């Protein structure tokens, strides 16, 4: 078991990859065997992730040097800088990995019925597993170029999956937009990596953080990295592609795409906190994140009110919710240099933002899945054409209500616990932020109630006479996420103490991140 944990980080990346390479071969023989392979590998990954999370909470940051004589040998011999790729897993990576493993498992199970009538299923599941690999790689890697490679794996497989239903024109358009945006963003990342490499001849984040000078070139690199990651995460001035791509994908994929947005957000945080850290003009960068986060919250929710398409409607809400996380963590970043303020409210604001990532990763895929369930049964995404579906689809309606209450921050659901953490701490920083947050929350509740009303309530429409409850695997997929919501709702303090606070501390404590790489020399 201890051995398994030594190699835990790479196994979590490599097992979905191995399964992805096997899927086309197994799928040719039997569809059932392929489905079992997908679920078993993802289940195994979930188990590994939670075991590794426990191990990290006891033993601190894990490093894994690929190809060295032992995993802990980050630098060869008595040489001072790392030359190999190093995976570095701390509390923040672990939190992201936990939610990613759960959501990908739920998405895979949801897909079994959702795409049952389509062709090309073997390749669909191959790409799904590759996307899982890309996500884990982005979360675990401690190397900038490796981050770029995994970012590309996640985006290319995501784009192909968005365009999965080739018979519709809008899927192709959405997929094309997604891949163009990701290609441009990742090339900007690559250019920034080139700028950093030219100055320090290093690619490892921890080793770079130790020597970084914050020269003009470093500032340019920071700007390019932040622009690229915020484009990919769908922050507001650059969000126009976001609803187009997210609304046309199969619902299970949309749920996973939400988490890849979070992964890009995580990469942006990694760059701000772990790479630049104390060298940063923290208030300036923090305020930039806060301002654009506020814009995202507001623009997202106002645009959502006008949407008729259920998936587009939810995509705009995703933009709005992402704004909360930018604001929460942005406040933490703005006071990063000031230990006193950081202790009074900065750390709490960051915890709130990170907690919101966890909550959003549970309820937003759930809502997208219910939207997909509606589409699956009615064949339309237009809310104004639906009605009276609560009679036929009871489970979907209940799960939708859970998601709605959670996203609008109604006590005692989990969305409330993270929002109240953000509100309280951010209020001490700047009251306007809290007020905007509350207003956006109310608007969210209003628009989701309206959507619930038009889809589920009212008289049964004659054209949906044959609609029944969705197949079992879709219910199971949604129920996994709903169970996650219920768990966080019942034990918020446990989750905050065990997962959220360590994650926030991992971001704040840049020294530990660097020491894990360079301090290993006796």
């Amino acid at each position, binding site marked *: 078991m201890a051995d398994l944990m030594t*190699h835990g980080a790479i196994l979590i990346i*490599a097992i979905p990859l*191995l399964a992805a*390479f096997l899927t086309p*071969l197994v799928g040719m023989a039997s569809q059932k065997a392929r489905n079992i392979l997908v679920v078993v590998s993802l289940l195994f990954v979930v188990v590994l992730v939670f075991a590794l999370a426990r191990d990290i909470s006891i033993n601190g940051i894990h490093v*894994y040097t690929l190809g060295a004589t032992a995993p802990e040998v980050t630098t060869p011999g008595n040489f001072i800088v790392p030359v190999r790729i190093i995976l570095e897993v701390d509390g923040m990576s672990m939190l992201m990995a936990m939610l990613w493993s759960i959501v990908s498992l739920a998405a895979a199970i949801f897909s079994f019925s959702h795409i049952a009538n389509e062709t090309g299923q073997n390749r669909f599941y191959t790409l799904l597993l590759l996307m899982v690999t890309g996500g884990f790689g982005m979360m675990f890697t401690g190397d900038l170029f490796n981050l770029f490679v995994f970012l590309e794996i996640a985006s290319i497989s995501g784009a192909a999956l968005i365009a999965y239903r080739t018979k519709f024109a809008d899927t192709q358009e959405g997929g094309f937009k997604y891949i163009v945006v990701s290609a441009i963003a990742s090339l900007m990342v690559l250019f920034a990596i080139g700028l950093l490499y030219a100055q320090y001849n290093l690619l490892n984040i921890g080793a770079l953080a130790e020597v970084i000078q914050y020269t003009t070139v470093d500032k340019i690199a920071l700007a390019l990295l932040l622009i690229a990651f915020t484009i990919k995460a769908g922050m507001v001035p650059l969000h126009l592609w976001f609803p187009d791509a997210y609304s046309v994908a199969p619902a299970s994929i949309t749920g996973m795409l939400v988490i890849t947005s979070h992964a890009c957000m995580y990469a942006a945080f990694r760059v701000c906190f772990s790479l630049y850290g104390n060298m940063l003009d923290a208030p300036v960068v923090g305020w930039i994140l806060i301002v654009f986060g506020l814009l995202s919250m507001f623009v997202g929710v106002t645009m959502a009110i006008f949407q008729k398409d259920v998936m587009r409607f939810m995509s705009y809400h995703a933009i709005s919710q992402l704004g909360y996380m930018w604001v929460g963590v942005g406040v933490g970043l703005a006071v990063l240099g000031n230990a006193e303020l950081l202790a009074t409210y900065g750390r709490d604001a960051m915890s709130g933002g990170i907690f919101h990532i966890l909550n959003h990763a549970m309820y937003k895929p759930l809502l997208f899945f219910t939207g997909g369930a509606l589409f699956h049964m009615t064949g339309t995404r237009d809310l104004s054409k639906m009605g009276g579906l609560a009679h036929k689809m009871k489970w979907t309606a209940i799960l939708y209500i859970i998601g709605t209450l959670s996203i609008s921050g109604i006590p005692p659901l989990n969305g409330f616990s993270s929002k109240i953490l953000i509100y309280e701490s951010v209020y001490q920083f700047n009251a306007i932020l809290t007020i905007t947050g509350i207003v956006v929350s109310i608007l969210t509740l209003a628009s989701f109630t309206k959507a619930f009303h038009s889809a589920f309530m009212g008289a049964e429409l004659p054209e949906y006479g044959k609609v029944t409850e969705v197949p079992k695997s879709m219910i199971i997929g949604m129920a996994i996420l709903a169970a996650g919501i219920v768990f966080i709702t019942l034990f918020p303090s446990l989750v905050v103490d065990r997962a959220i606070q360590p994650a926030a501390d991992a971001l704040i404590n840049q020294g530990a991140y660097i020491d894990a790489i360079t301090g290993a020399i006796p």
Partner: protein
Amino acid sequence: MLSKIVRTAANQLIVFIAVFGLYVIAHGHITPGGGFQGGAIIVSGVVMLLVAFSSHEIKKGLRERVLSVVESSGALVFIILAFAGIGTVFFYNLLLGTPLFGGIPATGPGPGNIWTGGIIPLMNFAVGLKVIAGLSAVVLALALFSSGEEVEE
């Protein structure tokens, strides 16, 4: 389908292209080149065949399903080679020092020996296989699709 002269010439040339590509793959660890480059050379030969003959003709001898299997196997060989070192560390070069490609060349400039490099030559072969099959499948599928033929699942 182009004229008979082109087709005959292409038929002869593909042998030389394939041999050159295999040479680049096999000597990836001692001379410039490697799996990706050699694979791309061979795929350029496949593209030449596609231009000379029609995609319909090529499809008779080269099926996407087969290419897909070959590509998956190449990828599997690569990741299994990486997994093989997990006794020490993932990607550990465990063949170094064994008779199979285990030689270590003298430090500094030298003539180069094919039996060196440990897992590097094997990985080059795996990647080469993958690139040949994968890119051929893409080119063939695009050609078939744009000429209105069915691409099999």
